[in-house]
């Protein structure tokens, strides 16, 4: 077959150019990460001092102050959300994987009628924009209580945590081979014991990594907190009072017109990103290999 050598040369160059463009695109994809990290360090590191971690917001015009109250608020809300959301999420995950087998896969356990709607509900919750979780909690908690509160913020975060934990733990438990369950049952153990001490324990490294990642994720959530825990300039962590949190405080500082507060916002963002990234990196590098990240 005869083809003009010019055309072949053109194809060769086209191929080179296209591959170069692909690599360029890849560069563009990772560039923002470095740009953001660079700016966080350049603008934020200087404001990171002892006071930053120990003091609360100072009134406008006064120098100094910090985000200690916000860090504490985040810890309180994430802690409370995890306390409620992790057991609930794990229970849902176990329910779905051990009692709600999908027909097409090799079915461990019996099939519960509830399973499909629950799976559906969790997937919907996971795909819902997080601000709507705030709107929901605002309607069912904040309005009846007539005030913003730490508790409502924690509940909102819990609703974001729940589907994350439930869905990853279902997937991970499903990966545990059926013969392990049968081995446990053959020993005469009751089913619940087999599930908790054989199945869950075998999957635990991955489940734990997934839980940590989910906690890292809600620690950075801002949108639902605007409508629930609202923010608070001082150290106040009563469960029924408005509460500060790190992401919310970053937002407040960032949209303010004050130079000093901008500096605080950068420092807060640096703290938040470092925490989240370190958590992510650790789980991915160590136990992370168990975990197949879902993007849906």
């Amino acid at each position, binding site marked *: 077959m005869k083809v003009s050598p010019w055309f072949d040369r053109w194809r060769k160059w086209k191929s080179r150019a296209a591959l170069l463009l*692909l690599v360029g695109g890849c560069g563009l*994809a990772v560039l923002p990460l470095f*740009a953001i990290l660079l700016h966080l360090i350049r603008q934020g590191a200087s404001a990171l001092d002892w006071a930053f971690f120990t003091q609360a917001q100072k009134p406008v015009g006064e120098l100094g102050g910090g985000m200690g109250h916000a860090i504490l608020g985040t810890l309180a809300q994430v802690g409370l959300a995890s306390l409620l959301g992790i057991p609930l999420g794990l229970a849902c995950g*176990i*329910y779905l994987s051990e009692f709600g087998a999908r027909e097409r896969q090799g079915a461990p356990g019996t099939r519960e009628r509830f399973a499909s709607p629950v799976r559906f509900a969790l997937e919907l919750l996971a795909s819902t*924009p997080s601000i709507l979780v705030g709107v*929901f909690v605002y309607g069912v908690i904040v309005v009846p209580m007539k005030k913003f509160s730490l508790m409502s913020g924690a509940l909102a975060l819990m609703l974001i945590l729940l589907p994350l934990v439930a869905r990853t733990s279902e997937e991970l438990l499903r990966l545990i081979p059926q013969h392990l369950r049968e081995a446990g049952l053959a020993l005469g153990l009751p089913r619940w014991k087999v599930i908790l001490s054989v199945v869950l324990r075998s999957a635990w490294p991955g489940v734990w990594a997934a839980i940590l990642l989910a906690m890292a994720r809600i620690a*950075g959530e801002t949108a639902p907190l605007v409508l629930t825990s609202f923010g608070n300039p001082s150290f106040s962590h009563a469960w029924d009072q408005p509460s500060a949190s790190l992401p919310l405080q*970053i937002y407040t500082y960032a949209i303010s017109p004050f130079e000093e507060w901008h500096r605080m916002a950068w420092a807060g963002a640096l703290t938040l990103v470092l925490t989240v990234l370190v958590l992510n990196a650790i789980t991915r590098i160590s136990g992370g290999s168990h975990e197949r990240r879902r993007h849906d």
Partner: protein
Amino acid sequence: MKGDRIFLQILRGAALVSLLILAGFFLQLFSSAWPALKASGISFFTSTNWDPNQQAFGAGAFIYGTVVSSLLALVIAVPISVATALCLTDLFASRVAAMISFLVEMLAAIPSVVFGLWGVFVLSPLLRSTIQPFLAERFSWIPLFSGPPLGIGMMSAGIILAIMITPTLTALSRELFLAIPTLQREAALALGATRWEAIRVAVLKSATSGLWGAVVLAWGRALGETMAVTMVIGNRAQVSPSLFAPAQTLAAVLANEYAEATDDLHLSALAAVGFTLLLVSTLIHWGAKTWIKRRAQT
């Protein structure tokens, strides 16, 4: 066995809670939204006049802002993500690919508010001082690039959203490309295809329909993104053809006005905005999911 029965009951209880939450979600949002929807009727979705002081509640501008900003994000993010995914599956040595995908996943872990902060203090000033004047000078005859270069606005929001959905899109496309057998690529090479042609013929062409699913999923993500958008979009309920102009999205207006709204109708109108967002994002998510599932079966 008694223990087993109790255990199953506990699990059922937990499962029921998640069902109730979802039901509560729709019910709560709908019942709060109903007064405003009843008062405005269809004009709630078509009118672009949103003025709480005048009791005028038309969400048209938010719908416009949501659609345009997320589409702009897709226009930017799709080529970049597909290129990155191709680099990961077809070009780079496995060690380099592992490092790049690690970095991309790290980008996914950064909280929305940090993207917003970076957008406000780095991206928007850059757009205002350099990029937008450049575009305005050369392409001002295109309505997209008309008006004063403000920095804050639709373009900022689109770019920030693009950065935020790139990790999701990259991961989804990467999975699609990985699922294509090496044999397919070799078939193209053995026919005398160049490397790019092999990628185009064997990889991109086979993955096209799956890519549509991925793009729609990412679109659903972009629609609901709140904090970063509200920080950079300018928060103004207006419909302007210019990408330089401020705008507003459904999600952003919620973050902006909800906590400060006191008037009942205003609150209800905001809930209606939320309900709209819930419907749209749910429909898009399920549409994309069914599309992907159906494709997997054939």
